């Protein structure tokens, strides 16, 4: 059983993704997982075919390997961006150092995942990408909310129902990140990158404790829990 089947797909409307990856084992593995998670998956084995598909078909997201035959991954993305194709692209690579990551993002990639990866990590990031692309422009909003949880970004106030909740600055950032990704699975690595801006994993799992503290503040004493743990993957903030 793949981890991807443990939570429902991203919604009623089927999402289309193109996987451009020359390693058939990887692409088959990703295709199976994404299909189970409710995605409509196309696979291209090399850069040229991938570029052709990406420019002629409409996709919600691209998964692009870096070292591809014929057209290199970054070149492919750069070419797409040059022709105003803004389909969100997740770069998959065995090159995981910070400068490789920066190069990938500079070329027009939207996220970067280092091989080997857990499928749950890929799925969570892919869903975050698609969501971000759909809600682009909402980044300037001043309040975020979920059910009866409300966050005022200007006053930096958090309320659940009528109750004012006092959060530490980092807890506030953590909640903001989760709210911006509400309904999606957020992995520990995504949190480390998004909230702490660290691109390395501490040996001890320190994120769990931060989450459980936040949960203690926003969920404790309320009927309906909002912050859920997704086993083997991460967390999800949802009603």
């Amino acid at each position, binding site marked *: 059983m793949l981890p991807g089947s443990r939570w429902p797909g991203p919604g009623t409307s089927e999402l289309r993704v193109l996987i451009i990856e020359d390693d058939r084992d990887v692409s088959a593995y990703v295709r199976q997982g994404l299909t189970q998670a409710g995605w409509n998956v196309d696979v291209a084995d090399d850069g040229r075919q991938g570029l052709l598909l990406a420019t002629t078909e409409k996709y919600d997201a691209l998964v692009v390997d870096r070292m591809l035959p014929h057209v290199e991954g970054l070149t492919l993305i750069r070419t797409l961006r040059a022709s105003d194709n803004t389909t969100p692209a997740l770069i998959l690579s065995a090159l*995981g*150092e*910070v*400068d490789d990551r920066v190069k990938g993002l500079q070329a027009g990639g939207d996220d970067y995942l280092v091989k080997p990866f857990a499928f749950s990590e890929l799925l969570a990031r892919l869903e975050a990408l698609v969501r971000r692309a759909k809600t682009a422009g909402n980044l300037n909003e001043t309040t975020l909310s979920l059910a009866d949880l409300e966050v005022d970004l200007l006053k930096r106030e958090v309320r659940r129902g009528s109750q004012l909740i006092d959060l530490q600055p980092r807890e506030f950032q953590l909640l903001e990140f989760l709210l911006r990704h509400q309904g999606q699975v957020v992995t520990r690595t995504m949190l480390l990158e998004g909230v702490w801006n*660290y691109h390395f994993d501490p*040996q*001890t799992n*320190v994120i769990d404790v*931060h989450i459980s503290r936040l949960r203690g503040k926003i969920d404790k004493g309320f009927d309906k829990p909002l912050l859920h743990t997704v086993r083997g993957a991460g967390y999800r903030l949802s009603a």
Partner: protein
Amino acid sequence: MPLPAILRTSVFRLTILYVVLFGISAAGLGGFIYLTTVGYLQRQTDEVIETEISVLREEFERAQDPLRPTVALNRLREMINNRGSQVQQLGDEWFYYMLVDRNTRKVAGNLEIWPEAEVNDGWIEFDVEAADGQMVPVRASILPLIIQLSALNGPRPTTLSVEETGDRLLVGREIRELSAINQRFIRALTLGLGLTLLVAFAGGLALAISAQRHVVEMSRTTRKIIAGDLSQRLPVIGHDEHAELAKSVNSMLDQIEHLMGGLRHVGDSIAHDLRGPLTRLRTRLEALAAEPAPTRQSVDECLTQADGVLATFNALLRIARVESGAYRKAFANVDLGPIAADVAELYEATAEENLVEIRKRITDNSVVFGDRELLAQALTNLIDNALKYTPVGGHIDLEVKRSDDRIIVVVADSGPGIPAEARERVLQRFARLDESRSKPGNGLGLALVRAVCDQHDGKLVLSDNAPGLRVTMTLPAAR
């Protein structure tokens, strides 16, 4: 040696260039010398002949009587016979005269036959049998004779007409000496040019070969390096640009060898130290495969173990990457104060769960020249480590302070500490103390801290915190 191969080499092309350049300049020089010496002598001879002719012409013109045209001719004939029969010695060289009529018949002179050589600009050169029987070269000028005639129909001449008689006077001079000099000169010039070309060829060849030798030597060494012998270095000969190139290439090779060494070391470590965990994982999977219905839990355990191997692998690569200096080019001034505070904050919640207190004494404005991410990771590893070994109710001290031109970072715990004799060993990769095997982690934490510290030109000291371990990192403060 096969010739066609040589034709394609730069040696051959350089040599030919030398020969052509030397040949042109030698020929130019020779030509100039020839014109200024032999040419000068020739002009002198010509002047002598011209003077003789003008003497004769003046006499001829003076003797002209328009009414009796033959008088002047007779006078000329007389003079020529006189001068021709005299031994006109002038440097042992004879004058030759010959007066002919319009049918080229001899009228007077000491030449018997009108020369048949080509007339060039009034000058003619030919050979004559001299009195001593030798054939000698003669250079001569030819003067056509013009006679003034008066109208013969009156008692007194009233008009003059000028008539070309067809008579011609040849005045020549033996040029035995000049011709000998000329010949010798040309022989000398030819010889000199040949010699010059020979020297140019030899010199060019020698120079080109010596230049070529460097290149050949370099490419031979390069081939050895390609074949896998990275210890080879190009020979540095002399102080020219070849030597400079060889030096640059050599330092490039040093760097490559250094990096290759690092890589090999990582490879060795991976081979040596990942084999254990991988073997354990394999054994486990084998046992799992034998079970009729593997449990979810046993699969998860295998996954965790595989993740552990990957984490170790990544940590190793990261250490190698740090040690290679790859991050240095992105170094900037960063304040260690906030970095340390952030890391402490990341761990505080976990520490509180374990009933361990993180006591911070952090001074801001502790600016070093470095990489935020690397320093954060080093601190993370130190605090992670301290937390692992600090017993419940213990404490961890995190201190960042400035001391003169140094920034001092201290992470001290109240755990069991490390015996003095083992402190150096824990900084090595994969070195964990046996009694701590039960703790999670891959034993690479301190090795990375050390690598980061080295890259920031810092010093890492482990000491006794009585009780516990005290890690002191001393970094140079940014200027």
